[in-house]
């Protein structure tokens, strides 16, 4: 009995201590799942003697919701997509830095410096960019796949075997491309059509999942999966006979960015980490792992051939992709309703 008490008392003391020891030599990352190799985190931790912890999210929207729900101030950096950087900036959730604070700032490719969502890069640095469309298992379907009909009006043999991403922004953007209507349209008829489209397509979809988007293709649970380009490449590497589509109606392009969060408990380490990721070798390590494309110059020598030549990372000249737009409050409300209608 006494022994149990003693053990417990020391455990309790450890708990309190674990909570007390904050800051100094720590870095808290809020990142997409399966998006950074553990070796790279270990390398950073060793090089700068920093203890790195990482939590993961599976959509821009859920990351925003969680930060809004009181997690802001507990993480140092996060990795939102383009439109989400803009939203977080306008919500005052980002801290700013001067380019001079990052010695590798010059490594950013010129076309990725003056971007619409963070002109001049005061809160963010490029992480990786890629595309979102869908992949089809070629064992189960031989027809033409370069059309969004595969998702929204699928041929009979694919119905009920489709997984879509659990991500509001990307799914509604792809649906808008399918309907050939502008994103974030304020036109009521177009919004109604958007709502009707996803409602009619829903019975064809077997599941909504982002985390399992790769696994359902590899395990054969789904024949079609809305998916990110690099994730599809990984599915292919893991043995699924899938082909990534560049639909003629268009597809989504995105850039994920490492942002400095407001009230970051370890701002210095966050900047060190961002600078670290701008090293060509490290940016290439992410690319080799996640199979997207970095926005950093000088990565070529470090890239593996498989990644350089992957069909997923080399879209054709046409059609072109489009970025997801951040909607105004009025339209966002309707989008939220469409999404809730869809998920219920």
């Amino acid at each position, binding site marked *: *009995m006494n022994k*149990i*008490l003693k*053990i*417990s*008392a020391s*455990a*309790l003391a*450890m*708990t*309190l201590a*674990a*909570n007390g020891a904050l800051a100094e030599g720590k870095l*808290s*990352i*809020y990142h997409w*799942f*399966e998006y950074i190799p*553990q*070796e790279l985190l270990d390398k950073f931790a060793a090089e700068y003697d920093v203890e790195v*912890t*990482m*939590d*993961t999210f*599976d959509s821009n929207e859920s990351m925003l919701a969680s930060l809004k*729900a*009181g*997690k802001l*101030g*507990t*993480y140092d950096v996060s990795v939102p997509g383009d439109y989400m950087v803009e939203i977080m900036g306008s919500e005052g959730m980002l801290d700013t830095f001067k380019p001079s604070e990052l010695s590798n700032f010059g490594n950013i490719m010129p076309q990725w410096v003056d971007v619409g969502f963070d002109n001049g890069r005061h809160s963010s640095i490029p992480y990786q960019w890629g595309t979102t469309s869908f992949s089809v298992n070629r064992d189960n379907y031989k027809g033409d796949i370069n059309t969004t009909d595969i998702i929204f009006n699928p041929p009979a043999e694919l119905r009920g075997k489709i997984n879509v991403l659990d991500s509001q922004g990307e799914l509604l953007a792809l649906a808008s491309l399918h309907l050939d209507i502008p994103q974030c349209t304020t036109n009521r008829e177009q919004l109604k059509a958007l709502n009707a489209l996803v409602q009619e397509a829903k019975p064809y979809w077997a599941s909504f999942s982002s*985390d*399992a988007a*790769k*696994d359902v293709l*590899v*395990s054969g649970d789904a024949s079609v999966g809305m998916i990110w380009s690099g994730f599809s490449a990984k599915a292919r590497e893991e*043995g699924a006979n899938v082909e990534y589509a560049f639909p003629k109606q268009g597809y989504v392009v995105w850039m994920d960015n490492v942002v400095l969060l407001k009230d970051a408990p370890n701002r210095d380490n966050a900047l060190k980490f961002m600078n670290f990721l701008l090293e060509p070798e490290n940016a290439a390590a992410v690319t080799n792992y996640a199979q997207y494309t970095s926005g950093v110059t000088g990565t070529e020598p470090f890239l593996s051939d498989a990644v350089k030549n992957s069909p997923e990372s080399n879209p054709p000249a046409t059609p072109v992709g489009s970025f997801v737009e951040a909607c105004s409050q009025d339209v966002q409300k309707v989008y939220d309703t469409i999404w809730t209608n869809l998920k219920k």
Partner: protein
Amino acid sequence: MAKKLDLRRFPGFLPMTWLCLFLLYAPLIIVMIYSFNDSNSITQWGGVSLRWYKDVFWGLEAEKFKLAAIHSLIIAVAAATVSTTIATMAATAMLRAGRFRGKSISFALINLPLMVPEIVTAVATLIFFSTIGFTTGLTTILMAHIVFCVPFAYLPIAARMQGIEDVYEQAALDLYATRYQAFRLILLPLMAPGVISGFLLAFIISLDDFIITNFVKGAGIETLPTAIFGAVKQGIKPNIMAISTLLLLVSVVFVTLSYLVGRMGQNKK
């Protein structure tokens, strides 16, 4: 006699019991078997090996799971200790202190955590910590765990205490022992099996919790269940089978211990 036995027996009930056990154990046993699978794919059988156990302890994600296991252990020990203490005091109040104000409502309160659906408790706790501006971390997980461990610790403790007559304590009091002495030297040793059993149950309940922990955990803090859930969301990997088997064995060992301690106590009586 033959007739009586006949009445107790219904045809088909024995096979049903076997079916019940089969249904309960088959998935667990299959996971245990596949944890020894020497193959990168979880569905293809590639012969028997311990490679995934090696991966759990020395693989790429070993550090993450090790840290999660330490968190789980710290929280479980602390939550079980505090909740067992609280439950022991509560049982003494409910069973040994005669009447007092609010006694019947206190009984309902002890069992309240069992009645509120887990997801509701999780949501309420998250909103609570967010409202009072308390940064979530190990402490918040611990507090939430203590709450739902109390009724589980209370059950075996109260059951044991009910079985102990109070003549021993009364005798001690007659011999001028203080009430604290009577409690510490007489009652507590007598109900030790119940307390230990309660501690072990609370320990397991805390170790197992996923839903509430998932809501109240803070930045960068994972317990074993939340870490496993995070990994499983992206598909079941072979190393998850190995971790699951290990955790499963821990649970079985602790329940068996709790069961044996409980039995020991009864036999002594």
